[in-house]
């Protein structure tokens, strides 16, 4: 995996962080959603990252010695929070149950906001990596002149 293909490592990082950010935004937007098409309150979603070798469209199919240790990242799973939501006593609420409790999603907005910042920083860092690598490739090309 040469410097060129390493661009796809950083691109995978951007893609993974963006998916993570999208899910966090969805969680935040639905932190009070008590009714979903599937029935019941909104279930919080989370990403699972795993590191994976990246292939480049221009590269060899097999991993060369040069790609030792070089791995991108992928979203291996999106999991839904299986635990039941928090109940609040609101007897007049349209989604209240027989005892007058409404089940709200298990979303902690402040935690997800912090996570969102992390996703955003991660995203930016990958952009910085792409920029630095492009510079190095550009200097390499200058060597030919």
């Amino acid at each position, binding site marked *: *995996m*040469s*410097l*060129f*293909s390493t661009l796809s490592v950083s691109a995978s990082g951007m893609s993974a962080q963006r998916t993570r950010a999208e899910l966090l935004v969805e969680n935040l937007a639905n932190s009070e959603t008590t009714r979903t098409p599937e029935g019941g309150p909104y279930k919080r979603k989370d990403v699972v990252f795993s590191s994976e070798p990246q292939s*480049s469209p*221009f*590269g*060899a199919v097999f991993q*060369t010695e*040069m790609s030792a240790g070089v791995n991108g990242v992928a979203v291996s799973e999106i999991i839904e929070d299986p635990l039941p939501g928090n109940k609040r006593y609101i007897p007049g609420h349209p989604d209240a149950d027989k005892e007058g409790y409404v089940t709200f999603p298990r979303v902690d907005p402040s935690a997800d906001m912090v996570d969102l910042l992390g996703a955003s920083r991660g995203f930016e860092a990958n952009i910085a990596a792409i920029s630095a690598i492009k510079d190095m*490739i550009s*200097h*390499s*090309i200058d*060597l*030919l002149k």
Partner: protein
Amino acid sequence: MGPIQPIVAPAVDKIVPVSAGSFSPAGTDFGALLSQAVGQVENGQQQTSAAMDRFLSGEDTEVHQVALVAQKAEMQFDLFMQVRNKVIAAYQEVMKMQL
């Protein structure tokens, strides 16, 4: 005053004829130098195209590695051209001499 010494002819058989391709001022053999330079140039060209192939096909080589090999090959070629020009110039000088 001693007896008159006979004139001795120079040792004609000791004159070594100059063989083509190796007229040698100060001991350098231009023929060997040239073939060595040709070999290096050919080697350089081969290495360059091998590096380019590796880069284009297998992602096994970095751009800068190709560039360095190409630059070295180019310098070897430049050097070869200079040597060749010098050799030809020297040869022409010699040929112009009236013997």
